[in-house]
C-alpha cells in the first residue's frame, strides 16, 4: 500500500516502490484559488529535496512547488499544461504534477504524515 507524506510547504508525495508521485494539497489549491498556469519540470531533471521543481500561478499570485524528495523526474502530468483547473478539481488525484525516481528513501523521514499535516493546516486557520 502506498504511503503519502506531506511538506510544510503544502506538497504531497505518494510513494510506490522507488517512485514518488508529487502534487500540491487540497488546502494549497484552496488558498491559491483558480490556477491559470503550471510550469512543470523537464523529464530527466535531477532535483535535490527542497529544490524548486515547478511553478504555479493563479491570477494574482505565483508560487514555487518544491521537490518533497530528491531524485530524477521520470514523468510529468502534461495534461495540466492545457487544463490547470484539474488541480483545483482534484489536487490529490488527477491533479498530480510529476513523478520522481527517489534517490534516497531516508529523506522521507523528514516529511509529515497525514495527521501532522492536518494539524499544521488546522493551526493556520
Amino acid at each position, binding site marked *: 500500500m502506498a504511503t503519502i507524506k506531506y511538506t510544510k510547504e503544502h506538497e504531497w508525495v505518494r510513494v510506490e516502490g522507488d517512485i514518488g508521485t508529487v502534487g500540491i494539497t487540497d488546502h494549497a489549491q484552496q488558498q491559491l484559488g*483558480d490556477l*491559470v*498556469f503550471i510550469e512543470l519540470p523537464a523529464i530527466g531533471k535531477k532535483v535535490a529535496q527542497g529544490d524548486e521543481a515547478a511553478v504555479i*500561478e*493563479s*491570477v*494574482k499570485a505565483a508560487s514555487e512547488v518544491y521537490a518533497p524528495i530528491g531524485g530524477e523526474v521520470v514523468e510529468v502530468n502534461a495534461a495540466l499544461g492545457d487544463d*490547470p*483547473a484539474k488541480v483545483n478539481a482534484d489536487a490529490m488525484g488527477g491533479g498530480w504534477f510529476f513523478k520522481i525516481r527517489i534517490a534516497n528513501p531516508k529523506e522521507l523521514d523528514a516529511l509529515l504524515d497525514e495527521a501532522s499535516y492536518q494539524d499544521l493546516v488546522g493551526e493556520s486557520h
Partner: protein
Amino acid sequence: MSAPAVTITGHRGLQHEEPLIFERDSPGMTGVDLPEPAPVNDRLGGLGRQGRIGLPGLSEPEVVRHYLRLSQKNYAIDAGMYPLGSCTMKHNPRLNEKMARLPGFAGVHPLQPVSTVQGALELIGATGHWLSVLTGMPAVAMSPAAGAHGELTGLMIIRAALEDRGDARKRVLVPESAHGTNPASAAACGYVVESIPANERGRVDLGALKAALGPDVAAFMLTNPNTCGLFESDIIEIAQAVHAAGAFFYCDGANFNAIVGRVRPADLGIDCMHINLHKTFSTPHGGGGPGSGPVVLSAALAPYAPVPYVVSDKNGFRLVESVEESDAKPFGRIKGFHGQVGMFVRALAYMMSLGSDGLRQVAEDAVLNANYLLASLKDTLSVPFEGPCMHEALFDDRFLKDTGVSTLDFAKAMIDEGFHPMTMYFPLVVHGALLMEPTETESKATLDTFIAMVRGLAERAKGGDADYFHGAPRLTPRRRLDETAAARNPILRWSPPAN
C-alpha cells in the same frame, strides 16, 4: 428599484457599446488625406512589403467618436477622487499640458545642434535644480524614464561606485512592505534580494536590519514615508547602521509628496533617491505612463550617474552624451536620447506654480487630509498601526470579519458610489489592506462625502448584506470580469472571425 431598461441598441443613454476599430473597418477608407507619392524608382532593395497589413479604414468622424466613447468608459482624477495609496493621484493642472506643447519644447529634435536647443537644456538644468534643492542632494540623474527605471538606475550607480572601490557586494536588503519594483530592480541589477521584516509599529525592524547588514550588503532600499503611510522614525539610526556596514542607503521616493518642502532626504542620511514626477510633481498618469524618474544623488555617488547630462559654462549649456567624452565615471546609458523632457516641462511648470511655500503647503495638506480620513474612519474600519499617519491612511480587513465581504468586494461597491477604490492588498504586511491616499487636491467637502460613503458601506457589510457586495459593481460599463478565463486562455489581440 425598477429593472434597468433593455434597449434595442444595447447603448444605455450616454453609455455607448463600442466595437473594436477592426469591427468598424470600411476597406479603403482613411481619416488622413495625403498627397500622391511622386513617381520614382524605388530604392527598397527588393524588400517591398507584399500583401495587406490588415489595418482597418475609418474616416475622421468615426475615429473621433470611437475614442470619445472609449474615454467615457474610464474613471479619472478629473472626474472624481482617486484615493489610490502610494500612487498620489492629484489634480493635473492644464497649464502643464499647455507648456509641454509649446512648439519650442515639443517640436525640438533630440539631435539638433546644441546651439539651437539652449532653452531645452536650460529646462533640464532648471528642473534638476528644483529637485536638487527640494531634496538637499547635490546631483541628479535626469534620464530615467519612470520610477522603476530610476530605481534600477540608482542601484546601477551604487554598484558602479562599489565596483570602482574594488568592493563587489552581493546583497540588497528590502523591507517586506516594499513596492514590488524594489526587489525586481535589485534583481535586474544582478543583486540577491533579502527581505527585512516590519516591527509591530509598522516600521523597519531595526534589530533585524542590523543583523542582516554585513560586508556583502550593497544597499538598503527603504520607502519613506513607508508603504504603511508612516514615517520611519528610526531613520537616522538606520542610515548610520547602513553606512557603518559600508553600504549605501537607497530611498524609494514614491511617497515624497508627504514631506516635500518640509523634510529634505539628504538630512535623513539618504545617498540616492528616485522621484516619480507623475506622483509628487503632478505629471499626468495617462492610463499608465509615460512616467519620469529622476534620481537625486549624494556627492559620493554623483560621478557614476549615467550619460547624458547637461553641463553649463560661460558659453552656455552643452550635453555630455557618451562615456568617452565624460570626465566623470558614468556607468553607461539607460535610455535613448536625454530623458522624458516633455515631462520635465510639466513638472517644472507645477513646481514654479507652487513655489517653495506652496510645495510645503502641499505636504501639509496631503498629510492633513490623510489624517482626517484616518480619524474619521478609525472607529468604522480597523487600523493596524497607531497614527499619526503621513500622506496615506492604512486600514486592514478585521472590520469585515465574518461578514462574508472581502476587501475586494468592499472596493467594488465603492465603484457604484462614484469613487475609485483605494489600493487593496498592499502593503503585504497587513491582512486585506486598504490603503487610502487622498492627496492635497481634494476638498473637505469631497472627503466628507467619501467618509460618509465608506461608513455607510461598512454598516451595510456588518448588517449582513453580503450579496450586495458580491454583485457589485452594477452601474458600470462592465461588471466584474473573468480574469481567470483571461489568464488561462490569453486572447491578446483581435483576429478576423473564422469564415
